[in-house]
C-alpha cells in the first residue's frame, strides 16, 4: 500500500499548504496582471513573490536559481516535518518538471550545466543528502500525476519505503512566449468549464509529497493509477477523450462510487470539453467536479502534485472547494461542477491530468 503523508505547496497564495488552503477557502485567486515583471504579457499570471522566497531561503545555498529555490524550500519544509531518513537506501527523490531552468537559455548562463534537468535534480538531491540518484519525470502536464504513479509502483514493488516527489515549474519568458504563440492564454483569470472560457492562465509553484509504505495519522492511500495516450494529435486533445477515458478505465476498476473528481480543467475550450466527454464515457458524470486552476493557474509540472495535495486535504476535511471561475458551466457534456464550498463525505476521489503529446493520467485516492 502507498500512502500520501506529508506535503507542502508554494504558490502565489502562500508558502505552506495551510496558508494556501485558507486562501482557497476564502475564494481568493492568485492570478493577477503583473506589471513590473520580467516579460510583457496582456494575460494575468499566478506568480510567487520573489521577495518572500528570498527571505525564506536565506539559509539555503545562495547559488540557486529561482526554480531551485522554490523546489528546495518546498522540500525543506516537508523534510523538516517528516521524520524520513533521506540518506537511507530505501528513500528516493523524484523531481517532476516540464522545463526546469530553461529560462537560463536566454541569459549569460546559457551554457551552464543548470539547463540540464538531471543536473538540477542532482544538485537539489545532494543539498538535502539523498543518497540514491534522483529520478526526473518530464512528461508534459501529466508529469506530477505520473510521478505519483511511479512512486506508488516503487512502494508496491518493495524497492523503497519512502518516495519524496517535488513538482515544480516557473513562469518565464520562454513559457509565456510559447503559450502566447499558441494563443491559449486568457486575458482574464482562467474560467475552467465555463461556457465563455477562452484559455488558460499560467501559474508557477512547487509542491512536495512524501509517499510511503506506512500510513501516518493524516494520510490518504493511492489505490491505483494509469496513463494512456490519445494517439490523435500532439498539441490538441482527442475530441472524444480517448486517452483520458482509457486512463480512467484502467484506474477505476470497480463500480464503487467516486465522491469527487479533481479535474485538469485548464480552461482552454478543447481541454475542458474533452474532459467532460471522458468523464461521461467513464460513467462518472454524477460525481462533483472542480478545477483548482482558477485559484493559481496551470502550474505545469507541479500541477499534478499541488492539485493532488489539495484533493488530499479536501478528503481529510470532507470539504470540496468551489471551481473558481466557473460562473456559467458550459462543456459539451454536462458535469456536476462544484459551485460553492461544501461539506460532503469523501472516501474515494479521482485526480485527472492531460497534456501535450496526447498524454493523460489518472489516480484514485482513498481514505
Amino acid at each position: 500500500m502507498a500512502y500520501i503523508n506529508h506535503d507542502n505547496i508554494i504558490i502565489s497564495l502562500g508558502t505552506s499548504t495551510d496558508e494556501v488552503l485558507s486562501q482557497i477557502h476564502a475564494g481568493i485567486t492568485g492570478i493577477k496582471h503583473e506589471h513590473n515583471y520580467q516579460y510583457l504579457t496582456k494575460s494575468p499570471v499566478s506568480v510567487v513573490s520573489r521577495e518572500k522566497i528570498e527571505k525564506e531561503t536565506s539559509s539555503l545555498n545562495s547559488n540557486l536559481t529561482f526554480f531551485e529555490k522554490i523546489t528546495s524550500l518546498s522540500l525543506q519544509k516537508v523534510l523538516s516535518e517528516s521524520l524520513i531518513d533521506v540518506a537511507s537506501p530505501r528513500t528516493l527523490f523524484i523531481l517532476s518538471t516540464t522545463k526546469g531552468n530553461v529560462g537560463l537559455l536566454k541569459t549569460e548562463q546559457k551554457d551552464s550545466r543548470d539547463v540540464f534537468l538531471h543536473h538540477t535534480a542532482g544538485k537539489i538531491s545532494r543539498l538535502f543528502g539523498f543518497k540514491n540518484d534522483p529520478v526526473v519525470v518530464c512528461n508534459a502536464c501529466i508529469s506530477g500525476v505520473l510521478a505519483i504513479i511511479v512512486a506508488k509502483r516503487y512502494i508496491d514493488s518493495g524497492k523503497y519505503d519512502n518516495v519524496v516527489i517535488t513538482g515544480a515549474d516557473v513562469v518565464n519568458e520562454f513559457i509565456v512566449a510559447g503559450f502566447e504563440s499558441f494563443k491559449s492564454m486568457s486575458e482574464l483569470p482562467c474560467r475552467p468549464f465555463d461556457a465563455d472560457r477562452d484559455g488558460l492562465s499560467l501559474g508557477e509553484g512547487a509542491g512536495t509529497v512524501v509517499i510511503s509504505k506506512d500510513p501516518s495519522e493524516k494520510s490518504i492511500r493511492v489505490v491505483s493509477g494509469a496513463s494512456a495516450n490519445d494517439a490523435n494529435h500532439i498539441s490538441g486533445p482527442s475530441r472524444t477523450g480517448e486517452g483520458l477515458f482509457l486512463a480512467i478505465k484502467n484506474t477505476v476498476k470497480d463500480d464503487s462510487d467516486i465522491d469527487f473528481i479533481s479535474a485538469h480543467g485548464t480552461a482552454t475550450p478543447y481541454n475542458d470539453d474533452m474532459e467532460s466527454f471522458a468523464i461521461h464515457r467513464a460513467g462518472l458524470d454524477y460525481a462533483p467536479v472542480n478545477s483548482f486552476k482558477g485559484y493559481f493557474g496551470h502550474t505545469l509540472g507541479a500541477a499534478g502534485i499541488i492539485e493532488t495535495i489539495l484533493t488530499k486535504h479536501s478528503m481529510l476535511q470532507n470539504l470540496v472547494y468551489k471551481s473558481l471561475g466557473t460562473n456559467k458551466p458550459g462543456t459539451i457534456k454536462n458535469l456536476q461542477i462544484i459551485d460553492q464550498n461544501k461539506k460532503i463525505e469523501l472516501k474515494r476521489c479521482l485526480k485527472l491530468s492531460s497534456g501535450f503529446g496526447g498524454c493523460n493520467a489518472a489516480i484514485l485516492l482513498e481514505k
Partner: protein
Amino acid sequence: MTAEKLNIRKFIGINKNKVYTDERLIFNDPDSNFKTIGKSLYNMLKCSYPKYYKMDNLSKLTFLVTEMLNKEVNLKQFNPDKTAIILSNSESTLDTDRKFTSTIDTIPSPAVFVYTLPNIATGEISIRYGLKGENLFLVEESFNPKILVEQTEMLFADSDTEVCITGWTDYIDQDRYKACLWLIERYSGSRGRIFNAPELQNDFNMTE
C-alpha cells in the same frame, strides 16, 4: 506486486551513421550528419509520412528508430491499447529549447514550441501506430538501464500492458545523437532474450 519475467523481443539502435538490430549492423553510411542520415533512413525505409517534415530532430530520430523496429516486428500485431512507451534521455529537448529561445524576441512559433517537451516524441510514434498504452518519459544524467528495467517491470506488474517499447532517445546536435529501443513482452518460453540491465547495457555499448 511481484516483478514479471520479461523478454526482449527485439533491439534496434542508431548511433550516428550506424544502425544495429540485435547483433547485426544493418546500416552504415560514410556521412554521420543527422540531416543526411535522417534523409537516407527515411528513404531506405520508404516512409511516406508528411508529418515527419514538421518534427524536430528528437522526434525525427525517435520516429526513424521506431520505423526500423516496426520493420523488424510489425507493431500493428499488438493490441494498441496495451502497448506502452517508456523513453529516457539526457538532453530532454535542449536542441529545440535553444531554437525556440532564439525566436522569443521576434516571432515565437507554436510549431517549434510544441516540440519543447520530450514526450512529444512519444506522442508522434503513438499517432503513427495508434498506440494508446501507458507513457513515461524520464531524464537521466546518462543511459541508465537499471531504471528502464525497473520501470518496465513495475509497469507490467501494475497494468494490463502486453508490450512495451522501452528505450533511450537522445539528440544533442547534428553530429551527436543516439537512439536505442527494445521491444519488451511477457516471458513466453525461449523466444527472445531475458530482459535485464546487463543485456541493455551490452546492446547500448555495441552501438558505440
